[in-house]
């Protein structure tokens, strides 16, 4: 058991780190912003953690706080620039942002180690990572039906209707985007600690694709989706790999296509029948109940 666990411990760790990234993307998606910029905020968190570790020997708490703060700050700044774009252009702009992140990482050699990258002393353990995921989940579960949470969902479903209910869609999106930056910044710190080495390709397109794919795979309509998605997306290939070598990625790709084709709303869909306590009523014609007129 010990050997088995040692073998899969890192799989669980990476799945949890990816769950954090996917949760970050989900928070933006909550308010209808499809963003791949999590890779950028992850880089901000990751490289600041590496810098703090290397130059100041800062502990994990400081790293996480700084990563969260910087992720939040950078996301808040960028939201001003990006959120005015129409949604598809916004999505593409976040791709561009990720491409630029790599260039910035390469040029800011003093802070990032440039193309060689930089080592990080590992200061997180699995318990911390799981605790962070649980913390984010707790917050999201609490906020789901709060004033902000309902506004975010409303903005995603129909921004115009939300506005007519007094919700300022821009503010709601900006807050979601900034919060997604915070979580992705934390995820970057975690990933840097887990990998113990980060370079310009660590926080690049592949990570950006992984986080949105995990999010969509799991389902974008409930916060549990990204976690399930990350576990399936990261864990399944590892498990497959230990039985059949070489086909894990082929399977991941095919699985992603199949799930999107047959379960377009992802694995976790709060609308699905078995998820709800009561069976939904059919759309059949039934007589409308008489209103009680209050005169």
């Amino acid at each position: 058991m010990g050997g088995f666990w040692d073998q899969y411990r890192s799989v669980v760790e990476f799945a949890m780190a990816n769950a954090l990234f996917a949760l970050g993307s989900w928070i933006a998606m909550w308010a209808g912003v499809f963003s791949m910029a999590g890779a950028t905020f992850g880089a901000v968190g990751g490289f600041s953690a590496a810098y703090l570790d290397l130059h100041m020997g800062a502990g994990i708490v400081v790293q996480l706080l700084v990563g969260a703060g910087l992720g939040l700050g950078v996301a808040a700044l960028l939201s001003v620039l990006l959120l005015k774009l129409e949604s598809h252009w916004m999505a593409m702009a976040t791709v561009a942002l990720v491409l630029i992140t790599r260039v910035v990482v390469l040029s800011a050699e003093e802070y990032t180690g440039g193309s060689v990258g930089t080592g990080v002393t590992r200061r997180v353990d699995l318990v911390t990572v799981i605790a962070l995921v649980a913390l984010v989940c707790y917050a999201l579960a609490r906020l789901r039906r709060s004033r902000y949470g309902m506004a975010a969902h409303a903005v995603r479903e129909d921004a115009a209707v939300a506005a007519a209910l007094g919700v300022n869609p821009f503010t709601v999106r900006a807050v979601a985007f900034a919060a997604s930056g915070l979580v992705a910044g934390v995820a970057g710190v975690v990933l840097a600690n887990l990998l113990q080495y980060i370079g310009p390709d660590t926080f690049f397109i592949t990570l950006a694709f992984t986080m949105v794919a995990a999010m969509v795979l799991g389902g974008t309509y409930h916060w549990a989706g990204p976690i399930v998605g990350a576990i399936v997306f990261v864990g399944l290939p590892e498990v497959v790999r230990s039985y059949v070598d070489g086909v894990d990625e082929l399977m991941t790709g095919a699985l992603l296509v199949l799930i999107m084709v047959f379960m377009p709303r992802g694995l976790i869909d709060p609308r699905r029948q078995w998820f709800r306590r009561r069976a939904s009523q059919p759309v059949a014609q039934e007589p409308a109940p008489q209103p009680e007129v209050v005169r």
Partner: protein
Amino acid sequence: MVSKLARRTAALTMAAALATTSLAACSSAGGSDSNGATKIGLIAAEQGPFAFAGASYLKGAELAAELEDVELVVEEGSEDPAKSITAFNKLTGQEGVGQVVCCVSSAVAGAMKPLATSKKVPLVVYGATTPDLEDPPFVLRPALLPQQGIAPVSARLVKELGITSAVHVTASDNDGLVAQSEAARTSTEAAGAKDLGTVKTLVADTDFSGAVTEILSKDADMVTVYTLGEAAATITKALREKGYDGVILANNAVATAPLLKSFGKTLADTYYSVEYTPASSIPAAAEFTKAYEEKYDEKPDLFASQGYVAVKYAAQGASEAGDGADAAKIADALAGIAEMDSPWGPLTFEDGQGTSEDFQVVQIDDAGVPQLWTGAGA
């Protein structure tokens, strides 16, 4: 009202989290007990960016394990930092593995270094060329640094071929290659060739049309190319195609079997320096070549010799530490090795870094086959 669903899912997630946490606690209590660490772990690179060399490394390593009578435990790392770290953890989690041989690329070696140091398991690096990577007793590099050979060889070429000016090409974002290019630049200049400057490319570049135009515009007698092998071969080919007829001294990575095969005679008349070639004049090299040919029925290459030397070195450390030694003792034994015979000539070690004087000069002939170069008169 928090919806029922949300509450239920939260509960489930928390339960799952708790379950995983308690598992983690259990396993960390297990700890690692490694007495009798006679096995040598090896992180292979049969897949990934260095797959072209991975098989040779492994064959050389397995030959050494057979000759030295040690057990080799192989785990694929694909020269990917994350996968290699996983492989390292898997290897060191196994009973009896007291040291790990790994790493072709400097990036991966850099990622493994802190891990080896913190886990106190010696890491024997067989390929990476970044300066100052070695850090005894836990990070050791028997592999030679190419710049040890580039300096004398480039000076020799300048003198024997009557070179008066040289231009240099490097990959400015790779410390190892920059160090090699710098070695070529200083020694050609010291030997009397005018320095016409250094053209900088990047490791990730694939389009060299601009760089080639820049090189040609300098009109030098000699071009030294210290970039990754693919790039060096591509630049060499493009220079010849655009009519350059001077001397080209390139990174020895242009002469890997797949590159020689696919570039063929477009690499004709290119020089390089190398610690091992099957045609080497060093006696220990001939022995290695013979043993390798007997086992695999093919000629070894440089990578095979690197895998061989690394495992031979690791085995020597293990045997000096004695039976039942733990990883820390093996580390001390490895760091204590001062000399070792090798296909690269007698190796001496300083601070866990191998050095040798016996570099060979190779010239690729008109048919695209590397031949030992014995001098301008030959």
